[in-house]
């Protein structure tokens, strides 16, 4: 609509903000309000805020009490993750696709690289990290850009069978990451109670996200099953979980699970919380998937069955791919709220990002530095959730059969 009209920036501004006297009044009010907020924020950030609380505790916020002499494992994991990201990203862009003009460095990618480089330079400066650690972050950023460049440049030279193996890196990396973090296979064990901060938040949320998805699909299928017992067990489970606030379930997991299992069998409370998050999110994912299943015409399953496909195969090859595509936005929405829900761990005494923040602010030296810490945490969470949302939308367009003739 906007493109249809001639538009110099000034005209556009006028049309959008001052098309009627009322609009003008509203606009002036809003502009005044925004300016006041912006000025207050800048003033506060420059003159009142004391960022020492983050600078002195950056390690605590990043990994909690993870033993210092074992932290090389986390650096190794970061490096692996960065390498894998660069590789996948490069391949995604380097391979020709029918639906768009090939472009090795589209605008979005250039912006992303600029943001990464800026972050790698500015964040360590802001946090006053030691030179050794700063240097590592620069190297990580350089590695990301380099693998991205190399993979994009030579994507076509990689033989297709090898290329097809690349996505497999991710599950492998996940297991490798778990081993690196918790120990085993010759590495010293690092007890979960020593994980904290961002590390704990990421471990808990990634674990729950990965497991709640298959569990949710099973529950959704169970709920739509023709077998009454299966259906009713699923219904009872889903509605029971959805009827309870997460905090009461976490509370139950921490205080009652010990009673429910034979002595000593209950997992560590970090894992206990991870399982509660998983079981909690599964009920919601089940509802999202169920909506996806409901959107399919009944004929799909019947047609597949009448072609002689056994039920499991009909579900896996015909019904689920279509249903999951419909359920994708709602499911990712659940993942996003799951990431946000990890903050509730701080209420049961775990030291996730928010829990660490509360501990740090009990430290005499940093009492009352609430605004600094909470704002930075909010920014972190916002970036994480927004990234998930963006990824979901990108995936949606790619999976949309009508918009993508390549499939």
């Amino acid at each position, binding site marked *: 609509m906007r493109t249809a009209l001639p538009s110099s920036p000034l005209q556009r501004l006028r049309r959008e903000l001052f098309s009627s006297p009322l609009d003008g009044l509203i606009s002036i009010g809003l502009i005044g309000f925004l300016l006041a907020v912006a000025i207050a924020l800048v003033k506060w950030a420059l003159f009142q805020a004391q960022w020492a609380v983050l600078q*002195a*505790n950056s*390690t*605590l916020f990043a990994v*909690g*009490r993870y033993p210092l002499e074992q932290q090389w494992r986390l650096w190794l994991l970061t490096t692996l993750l960065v390498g894998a990201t660069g590789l996948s990203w490069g391949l995604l862009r380097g391979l020709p696709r029918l639906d768009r003009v090939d472009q090795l460095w589209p605008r979005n990618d250039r912006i992303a690289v600029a943001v990464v480089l800026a972050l790698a330079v500015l964040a360590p400066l802001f946090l006053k990290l030691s030179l050794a650690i700063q240097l590592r972050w620069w190297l990580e950023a350089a590695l990301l850009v380099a693998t991205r460049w190399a993979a994009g440049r030579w994507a076509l030279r990689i033989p297709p069978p090898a290329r097809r193996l690349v996505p497999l890196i991710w599950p492998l990396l996940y297991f490798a990451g778990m081993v690196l973090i918790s120990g085993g296979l010759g590495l010293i064990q690092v*007890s979960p*109670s020593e994980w904290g901060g961002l590390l704990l938040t990421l471990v808990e949320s990634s674990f729950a996200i990965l497991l709640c998805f298959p569990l949710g699909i099973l529950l959704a299928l169970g709920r739509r099953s023709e077998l009454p017992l299966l259906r*009713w067990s699923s*219904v*009872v489970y*889903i*509605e*029971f979980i*959805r*009827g309870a606030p997460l905090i009461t379930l976490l509370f139950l997991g*921490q*205080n*009652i*699970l*010990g*009673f429910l299992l034979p*002595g*000593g069998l*209950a997992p560590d*409370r970090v894992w206990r919380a991870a399982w509660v998050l998983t079981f909690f999110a599964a009920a919601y994912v089940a509802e999202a998937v169920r909506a996806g299943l409901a959107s399919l015409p009944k004929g799909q399953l019947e047609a597949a069955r009448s072609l002689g496909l056994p039920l499991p195969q009909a579900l896996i090859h015909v019904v689920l791919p279509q249903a999951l595509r419909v359920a994708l936005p709602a499911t990712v929405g659940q993942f996003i709220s799951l990431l946000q829900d990890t903050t509730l761990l701080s*209420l*049961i*005494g775990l*030291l996730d990002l928010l829990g660490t923040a*509360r*501990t740090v*602010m*009990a*430290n*005499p*030296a940093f*009492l*009352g530095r*609430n605004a600094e810490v909470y704002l930075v945490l909010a920014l972190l969470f916002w970036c994480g959730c927004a990234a998930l949302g963006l990824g979901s939308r990108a995936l949606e367009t790619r999976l949309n059969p009508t918009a993508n003739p390549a499939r």
Partner: protein
Amino acid sequence: MPLLRRLAASLPLMVSLALVGCASDGGGGIQSQKLATIKARGKLICGVDGKLPGFSFVGSDGQYTGLDADVCKATAAALFGDPSKVDYRDLNSSERFAALASGEVDLLSRNTTETLSRDAAGGNGLSFAPTTFYDGQGVMTPNASGVKALKDLAGKPICVESGTTTELNLADRMRELKAAYTPLKFQTGDQTYAAYLQGRCVAVTSDRSQLAAKRTSFPDPAGHTLLPEVLSKEPLTPATTNADPAWADAVRWTIYALMQAEELGITQANIDAKLAEAKANPNQADLRRFLGVEGEFGKQLGLPADFVVKAVKATGNYGEIFERNVGMGSKLKLERGSNRQWKEGGLIYSPPFR
């Protein structure tokens, strides 16, 4: 239909209610397994506050320090000869007993007041070790508030940590004074003090030692006063559960050992010399038994024979622990007061090691 389905959700509730309600007894199968579990695990899981300077506190280096943390370290040293074999769990005051009862932590060393209902089998069912800090409840107010006594707090908001004995004592005292007040309860100590410092309440109440500890960290420690009234007795005591008396005894006597060591003048510095002395002199029977050179004290408790040596080596004796964490050698600068040895008129008294 949706309603019906949601009603169905209450099914597990009802079933569990019915089943648990009908069940009579199952016979306890977890007695005296705790020690074995801990030894097999190779680590002691210790429930602490984690946010209270002087008692248990995580510094920016991620290390736990404090009197309560030292009790954990001494116990771990008695078990494994290594004070670092402790997994600390930060517990807030309202989750601590459930964590202990469900076996989540082996030992609760979290400035917990010993009371009848917490000890009783029909109450929380805890088993208390010797008291490591005799305290009393106090009230702190800003000097500027003009509050001079408890009764001045009528009609005013008072900050208190929820789920503590202080919460109950406050309610009792204010009722006696017939003074209405607004309790502002927070789940954790740091939130309680943050609200107090930001001026949300005119007073904050807690154990006097804790108030003193927190006050050292205030921007203007001199601007806050403890009211003269002591609201209650607060013997802060480590605890285990009734479910495993053998484990409770091991903890109890490890703590007594720290107290006995002070009485005998055994310190972290001279423990090796004392041990050599005991080994060299067969007629110093008391010392030899205490340090495990002879006798079976360790074995009777399920601990190594030299558990006393290991514990004292790790943390020092009770007096050293006190001085380092809360006494004159610390930021808190608390007097020994009631926490002196019995010979000096205090309440610290170890039964004989015999």
